[in-house]
């Protein structure tokens, strides 16, 4: 604003200097310059107003879920269909991680070409999970002479979901977990298969050999696989603590939970994600039989509020579901029962079983 005032003062000084020269020299050149100096701001302001009224904004980017550490591009298109270009278009953008409730405002100054506009591409690498939002607070178009500006707002944001990295290495004793389950009994009866076939579909890369429906495949001359659903009425409850502190444990909890969940789903172990919602003050159970459901669960998770207590979720689970219900708790190692089921990172431990 101060700069703008200074520019106006500077313009007046130039105008006065030219008027002084005109008065002193009585030169036609000064007269012409004076006419130009009177009308040029008007042309400049009208032109910029025209551009401001007709401009539009468009976000482009990967709308599917992204993985942490993955690089992607977010594109912001500012369309200027009129014949007047703008030398200084100022945008105030908020980029935030809504899950962590952190964000930062940044200002971009760009040119807006006449009839075309401008495209800004952010080559982004996300180092944290969550719901990332790119939002334009306002767009300000300054006239050529920099003496005034016109502001527009565009409320629609661009949001991208960032999931934990699937490649997180989990060192887990799955057999131990299996042994503790009732399904083990089923598996002895059905030859270690404790699930029933729900559907038959075409083979997709990554399907297990053991799920191939050989008879049907021979008949149809194409590989068919059986989709199985757990027969057990008991699901694996994967409870994660949505707590965070300065050491950023939550990122590792998310990574760890996602890693375990993926591992379980790969091994045909159905599970339910469980977390304590600080928004609704209840336990949220999200059944995830497929990876897509797991991703959707995380998407829902990112709408939750983070709390400070290290074991709030576990305690609420015990309170609401009784201590007999079995679950896999993912939280701070220091607050576990000492029996490490698996390790992930330097800080987080995973503990199994009902805490008695």
């Amino acid at each position, binding site marked *: 604003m101060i700069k703008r005032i200074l520019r106006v003062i500077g313009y007046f000084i130039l105008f006065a200097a030219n008027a002084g020269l005109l008065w002193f020299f*009585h030169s036609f050149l000064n*007269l012409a310059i004076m006419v130009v100096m009177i009308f040029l701001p008007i042309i400049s302001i009208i032109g910029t107003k025209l551009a401001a009224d007709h401009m539009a904004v468009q976000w482009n980017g990967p709308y599917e879920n992204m993985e942490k550490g993955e690089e992607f591009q977010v594109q912001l298109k500012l369309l200027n269909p009129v014949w007047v270009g703008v030398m*200084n278009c100022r945008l105030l953008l908020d980029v935030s991680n809504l899950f962590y409730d*952190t964000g930062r405002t940044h*200002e971009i100054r760009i040119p807006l*070409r006449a009839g075309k506009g401008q495209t800004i591409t952010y080559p982004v690498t996300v180092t944290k999970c969550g719901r990332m939002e790119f939002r334009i607070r306002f767009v300000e178009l300054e006239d050529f002479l920099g003496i005034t500006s016109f502001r527009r707002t565009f409320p629609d944001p661009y949001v991208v979901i960032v999931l934990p990295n699937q490649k997180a290495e989990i060192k887990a004793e799955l057999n131990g977990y299996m042994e503790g389950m009732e399904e083990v009994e089923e598996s002895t009866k059905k030859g270690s298969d404790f699930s029933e076939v729900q559907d038959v579909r075409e083979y997709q890369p990554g399907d297990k050999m053991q799920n191939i429906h050989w008879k049907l495949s021979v008949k149809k001359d194409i590989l068919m696989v059986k989709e199985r659903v757990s027969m057990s009425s008991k699901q694996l409850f994967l409870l994660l603590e949505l707590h965070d502190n300065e050491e950023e444990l939550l990122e590792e909890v998310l990574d760890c939970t996602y890693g375990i969940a993926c591992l379980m789903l790969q091994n045909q172990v159905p599970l339910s994600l469980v977390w304590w919602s600080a928004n609704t003050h209840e336990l949220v159970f999200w059944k995830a039989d497929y990876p897509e459901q797991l991703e959707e669960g995380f998407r829902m998770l990112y709408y939750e509020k983070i709390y400070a207590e290290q074991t709030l979720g576990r305690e609420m689970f015990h309170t609401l579901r009784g201590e007999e219900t079995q679950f896999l708790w993912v939280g701070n190692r220091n607050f576990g029962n000492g029996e490490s089921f698996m390790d992930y990172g330097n800080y987080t431990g995973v503990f199994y079983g009902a805490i008695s």
Partner: protein
Amino acid sequence: MALFHKKKVNTEINLADGIVMKEPLHMETSSWLKNCMVKSLLVFSVVFGAIGCFLSSIDLEYYVFPTAVLLFAMALLFTTIYYRGWLMDLVYIVFLFIFFFLVRGFQPYINSGYYLIVNQVFEIIENYFDLPGMQYYEIAVSNELLAVSVIVVFVGTVMMIVANVIVSRTMNVWFLLFMTGFLWIMPMYFRLEPDSFFVILLVTGYITVWSIHSSGAYGMDRRHRDYKWKDKKGKPLRIWYVQDAATILQSMGIFIISVLLLYGITSVAGGKDTFNIRYRQNPQKEESEAMIQDISTRGFSMFDRYAATGGISGGQLGGVGSVRPDYQTDLIVRFTPYSMEPIYLKGYTGVSYASDSSKWLNYKETLQDSPDIIDMLEELYNSNNSQYSFDYDYYTDRNIFPSGLSMYENLIRQSEKVSGDYYAHGTMQIKNVGASEVYAYEPYYCMDGLMAGDIIVGGIRRNQWKSYEYEPVINFESDEEDLLFQWGQKEQAEILYLDVPEECYDAVARASEEAGITEQDSQEEIIQKVKDYFEEEFLYTTRPGRCPRNEDFVTWFLERKKGYCAHFATAATLIYRYNGIPARYIEGYVITYEDVMNGELREEFSYDSFYEGYSSLGETGVVDVEVTDARAHAWVETLNPSLGWRVEEVTTAAIDPEEELESFWDVFGSGGSNEEVSDDSDFMLDTMDLDFDDIQGIWIGLLIVLAVLLLVYGGKIGYFRWKKYRSWHTEDGTENVLAYYQLLSDNLRKREPAYGECPTYRKQLQYMESRTEDWSWNVDQLAELLEAACYSQAGISELDCKRLMLELSDIRKKTKKWKRSKNQRKPNIK
């Protein structure tokens, strides 16, 4: 000095917590080359617009299109090199060399172009202020369009360099206005208007600069990124584009159309002619004009209106504030040296002094100005000399001048000395290189003077030779006093050469008195007393200031007691006349013995063909002496009853202490080529044939540039070293340790890239241990201390700080001894 400064820039930008831009942000902006072109267009429009406004205002013609193309090429060069720091430094140094040589090579054109512009401005000033007797520079080259174009290109190039720096660094319209404003404002003072094309070019340039500066997108990025950013803690991250040629061009287009339309509408509606009809002189401007006129007549003039080419002012005395020779060759004199005495070449003869116009009138002008003199001469001729009748038409219709030697003097010499021991006869050939074509530059005691009576007819045309036969008087004495007067010369001399105007009569009388001249003094005594008087009481200066308009030149000089040769010769002539000695004012060239010694010996010419008879130097040879305009001179001739007209040197040798000893061009060589200038293609070859002894000034200049560069470089190194030193000399011991270790690490990282790959203190120290032969420190201990200093909030104890500093200092000394090896293997650090 970007050559000496390379800084690593972190390109990672944190948009928010957990959202990082590791690669540069991409915007659709133009390439750096297009930006350069647009920027050069901007620089060009401002500089060429301003120059064009000036030249079109003063109505001076030149090759507009080629000049514009050359200047645009220059603008493009300088804007392009600005994008590479090292290239910029290199090109500027190379360009400096080339520029010096081009200036030397094109100097005749540059000088002539400059003189053409100055002459044009002088003419405008003369007409506007109605100044009398302005002098104009003579132009050495025939192609005036080319000369103006050359000076425009050279001056424009310098302006382009400055404008480019302004546009690239600050994009500040005020600086540009300051630099170029005078070019289009100055002609307005004289009510001159520039061409519309240049006005539109200039105004568009100014507006575009203003507009780009307002947008903030003018910063240059030498890595050709599309944008810049500022990320300060507590403030929003700011990202702004660097430049976009397309948007600038679009804006320029709008500006051009707007300016064109508005200018056109103003022209149609107001109209130049209609506007000028309504012109009324501003009272303040009138006052300023009066003031300028006053200043210009009081010697503070900014106009050195000395005719540098030719050096002879044709008797003009007033209106000149200072003289400044350009040291260009005016004449080439081929002759045989016979004496160490100066040789005078006579050009202009002033017969009567006109006080009102501060001018010496020649014979023709005197007769035209004074009908009484014609009557007196007619009477004289009719009564005393029946052989000659006075023919007014003969004397006035031709370009005639009284010669230095009358026929009677030659008769004396012939009768007395033809067969004597001191008789000599010589041939002198004179070529006019850059002198005025009006004058003959005749040596004294010339046979041609005898043939034409007392008159020399015609001058020497440029680039032509003229030959004179002369009989130098080396040791001539005569007691024959009556010979001269029996032909009526005494009366003629009294009519023509004894007049002292009323305006300066009192001052001359006073000076005569101050010189101690009495009635009893003989002619020789009076002449000597005047010389002594000038020598003791007066000072020589080339910058005496200009005589005020309403004041008599001689009176003014005799009061101020300082001036140059024309002042002394004028005053002395009048003092001699006041004391009854016929005297006249002479302008011409003087050749000193030093000039002769510096001349070129022409062995192909035989001594005998150029000289016979007595010579005080013995048998010498034929030499070509180059006479520059610095040898232009004014002196006095007095009429000696027995010897005729004699040269009297009256200019004092006492130099004013305030006199400027050397001008800028004196330092950078003694001027342009001595060869004749032609417009053909051989010109460059001729003029580029430089004598390196003459251009020692260039070397001095380059040494100065080099010294400045070294000083800047040294200063920069010193500054950064001081900053580094300060970084580990704070009050916080822990900070000092970390800063010192950082410096050590930075140094090692530069030397060995493998060191840079060690991520922790421990691994870095292990690397050092593996590379140092006599390592005697405990790596674990050092690493723990450093980690504590870095990560612990409490830091480390003062004692530990001191110990750590000492140890790090020792380690640093050891690491300096690391040997470099091409096949050095990377140490195995676990």
